[in-house]
């Protein structure tokens, strides 16, 4: 079994109101030195056999990320 991790993030130019809401809450924790928070999504895909990065890229491009507003990276992860 092999695991591929896909990280999906909003493109830098797309406003992330969730991240802003979190950033705005940080002073209440006493944190005042954070200038920005952005929220993305991590997706783990497990292949039955070997990790197929091309297939994972196709899945990410067609379904997991919307290329209009999001970027993604993929990598093979160690399965513990």
């Amino acid at each position, binding site marked *: 079994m092999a695991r591929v991790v896909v990280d999906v993030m909003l493109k830098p130019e797309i*406003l992330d*109101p969730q991240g802003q809401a979190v950033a705005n809450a940080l002073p209440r924790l006493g944190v005042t030195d954070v200038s920005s928070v952005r929220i993305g999504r991590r997706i783990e895909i497990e292949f039955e056999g070997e990790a197929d990065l091309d297939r994972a890229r196709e899945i990410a491009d067609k379904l997991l990320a919307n290329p*209009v507003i999001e970027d993604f990276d993929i990598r093979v992860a160690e399965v513990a």
Partner: protein
Amino acid sequence: MRIGVVTFPGSLDDGDAARAARIAGAEAVRLWHGDPDLHGVDAVVLPGGFSYGDYLRCGAIARFAPVMETIIDAARGGLPVLGICNGFQVLCEAHLLPGALTRNQHLHFRNRDQWLRVESPDTAWTNNFTEGQEILVPVKNGEGCYVADAHTLDALEAEGRIIARYIKGNPNGSQRDIAAITNEAGNVVGIMPHPEHAVEALTGPSLDGLGFFTSVLRALAGATAGGQQSGGHQ
């Protein structure tokens, strides 16, 4: 004329959309997400709601439903398709319309009666309005903030494809106050507010929403009469 209304798992407004089609004078035909057959309908409405629980992104999974494969091909061939709210999100995810709908800028779900200005009557779904007409229909969304890159927004403006804008307050932060857009051919329209909830005095803030449904009947009547299909942008 037969207007198909698709039901996905999690659709909410399919019943109201079918009712609006009937009130406008059409035969409403219920279409099921798992059935690729369009049953000979003349137009399709993708209704509001939370298809597939809004998992991943709103509309992202609905786009791959068997019925959508057929609708995407038919829309490219000129079939009038109206996506309302979640339906608009599905049309963007299916790349039938440009851009994307994202979380409302203020993060709150917004539910209210909303004034819009119809910017273009040159589509299959807006030909019964006049340019600049102000209409009142409900809006209810959590992810209705329309975004696209500046080049796409400029092209939409230049080609007259922004067909309705929010006025008297933008409910979700949509760029350039965009409430509705169309494709190049004018047969596919996505709108975030809900015209199907403004078709009867008892339940709606106005009857303004009916115009979208009577427009498509007029476009279809023109097409069958052998006239020029309504809504061509060339």
